[in-house]
């Protein structure tokens, strides 16, 4: 059995008389990429933010690496990295300074050039975030969340608004992060992304988890229920054309 790093039990969040997250339970294994899928308003972000110790937990519990989130939020924040939905940084602050700032909150000094090199941003070291492209900004945001080498990395809709190349680039990055032993928990509403990246996914709707398994198993179960998709014989789609023409390798 894999080692369990996150254990969520009956997690609940209410705003007034509206229950946004309604008794959610799941476990995440160490080193896996775990996806939470669901339409907008399903409660994905709120679920993550409770586990990240950003929001109070109204019911149930979350234990991360054995630490009770509601009891010791500061300890939790030290071992997690968070990539918020829209990366936001102060303007007129250089990338190296941003990293220095974030590292300082963990009481650490940082080797900015090395970190920036990992995400191909070393030549942008003295730029401001507002002068980066969308994909660069996203990559920078990720490296900024990893300065303290967290055990678990949360990404909230990491590829929303990115073009296909930037998205593929980001998937590679996620796999690299996983290969170093970091557990990744992400939300997305792109099914294709979940299928490509995630070892297991939980599908959320209306504040509840309605399915949880590996993408492969979920598809198998669906087929076992007698589901048949309208047949297409295309060997490629428009996205493949786009990638083929513009090139996936957008390394510079």
């Amino acid at each position, binding site marked *: 059995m894999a080692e369990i790093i996150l254990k969520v039990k009956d997690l609940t969040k209410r705003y007034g008389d509206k229950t946004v997250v309604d008794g959610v339970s799941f476990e995440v294994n160490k080193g896996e990429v775990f996806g939470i899928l669901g339409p907008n308003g399903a409660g994905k972000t709120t679920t993550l933010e409770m586990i990240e110790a*950003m929001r109070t937990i109204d019911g149930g519990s979350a234990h991360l690496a054995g630490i009770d989130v509601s009891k010791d939020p500061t300890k939790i924040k030290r071992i997690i990295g968070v990539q*918020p939905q829209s990366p936001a940084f102060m303007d007129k*602050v250089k990338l190296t*300074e941003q990293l*220095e700032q974030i590292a*300082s*909150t963990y*009481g650490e000094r940082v080797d900015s050039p090395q970190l920036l090199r990992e995400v191909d941003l070393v030549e942008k070291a003295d730029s401001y975030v507002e002068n980066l492209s969308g994909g660069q900004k996203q990559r920078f945001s990720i490296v900024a*969340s990893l300065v303290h080498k967290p055990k678990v990395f949360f990404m909230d809709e990491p590829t929303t608004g990115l073009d296909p190349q930037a998205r593929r680039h980001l998937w590679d990055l996620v796999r690299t992060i996983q290969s170093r032993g970091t557990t990744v928990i992400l939300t997305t509403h792109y099914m294709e992304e979940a299928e490509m990246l995630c070892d297991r996914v939980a599908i959320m709707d209306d504040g509840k988890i309605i399915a949880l398994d590996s993408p492969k198993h979920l598809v198998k179960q669906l087929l076992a229920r007698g589901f048949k998709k309208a047949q297409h014989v295309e060997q490629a789609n428009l996205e493949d054309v786009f990638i083929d023409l513009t090139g996936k390798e957008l390394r510079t």
Partner: protein
Amino acid sequence: MKIPKVLLPVVVFAKIAIRRAFRDRVALFFIFLFPLIFLFVFGGIFGKANNVSFKFALLNNSNSAFSKQFVNSIEQTKVFKVDITADTLPKAEEKMNRGQLDATIVLPADFGVVKNGQYPSGAAQVLYTQNNEQAGQTLTSVMQAQFQSINAKYVTSQTPFTVTSKELNTKSLSQFDYTFSGLLGFSIIGLGVFGPVNVFPELKKQGVLKRLHTTPLKVWQYFLANALSQAVIGLVSLALMFAVAISVFHLKVVGNYVELAVFLAASIIMILGIGLAIGGWAKNERQAAPLSNIVVFPMLFLSGTFFPRFLMPPWLQKVSNFLPLTPVIDGVRLMATEGKNLLQIGPQVELLAVWMVVVYMIAFRTFRWE
């Protein structure tokens, strides 16, 4: 230098905030130029107001040699300012009615004409409106005194009683001394309240604070970093104001600069607490703007920013004594222009300390990351 881990974010955030302020042109304008503009405007108004002067029209209807000489001598005195554009009686009256002139002196056609072959004579007339009774009467007596010395040249007379005046060496506070400490207070408010009140809701909107909230950064660390950078930036800005006030408006600073800097830094940090409380609490600009106006405007008008508090009725002085900005402005004036030290302005230091505690307690409790 080894910085304790818990203080590392404070130092790093403050350092980068200071650098950032110098990169931002808009910030530079509001931090450095804006206060100087006010200094020049108010310094220009109050800078030389120490000498009383009368502005009046001088209508000379006489052609005599004496009247010409008399007009010349009047135009050369510092106390008298002759408005040469008001050269007819209707024009002069119109300007007096608008309050632009204090009085009008009319020299009749026969003024200074030598009659009966002995000496020139004549009767000047001072006209003034009801509102300017004081100015009119002062001008009349000044003229009378002038005529007396002229009269003495033509007609010898005995003067059993005389009065002489003598200037004392001690310098009293000029209007500019009050104005300057008030402007420093205004500048501290501008930096400490309007800065964060505008910036924090924006940072919340962009999600910058939410991002910081994902890290172990504590509110007190963030506040302390803000206080530190604000104190440094504020002291540079105020130093610039001092430099201009000293070189352009002849401000005489008699106090100790180090103690003054300490007091000013504490003042900047205390007032910043008000900004942190409002900006830290507000979810958006719509909440922040009205609240900051409610808090700031009474202070601006009642703490002696634009006019000295001793001009207010006693009950208002009593109330305004306790406003946060009052000890700042009074303390600065007492130290800078009256040469008091920190121990001698105990009441101001105490009130500042009390407000510091109150303001930051509120700021800590109401702060929201998003």
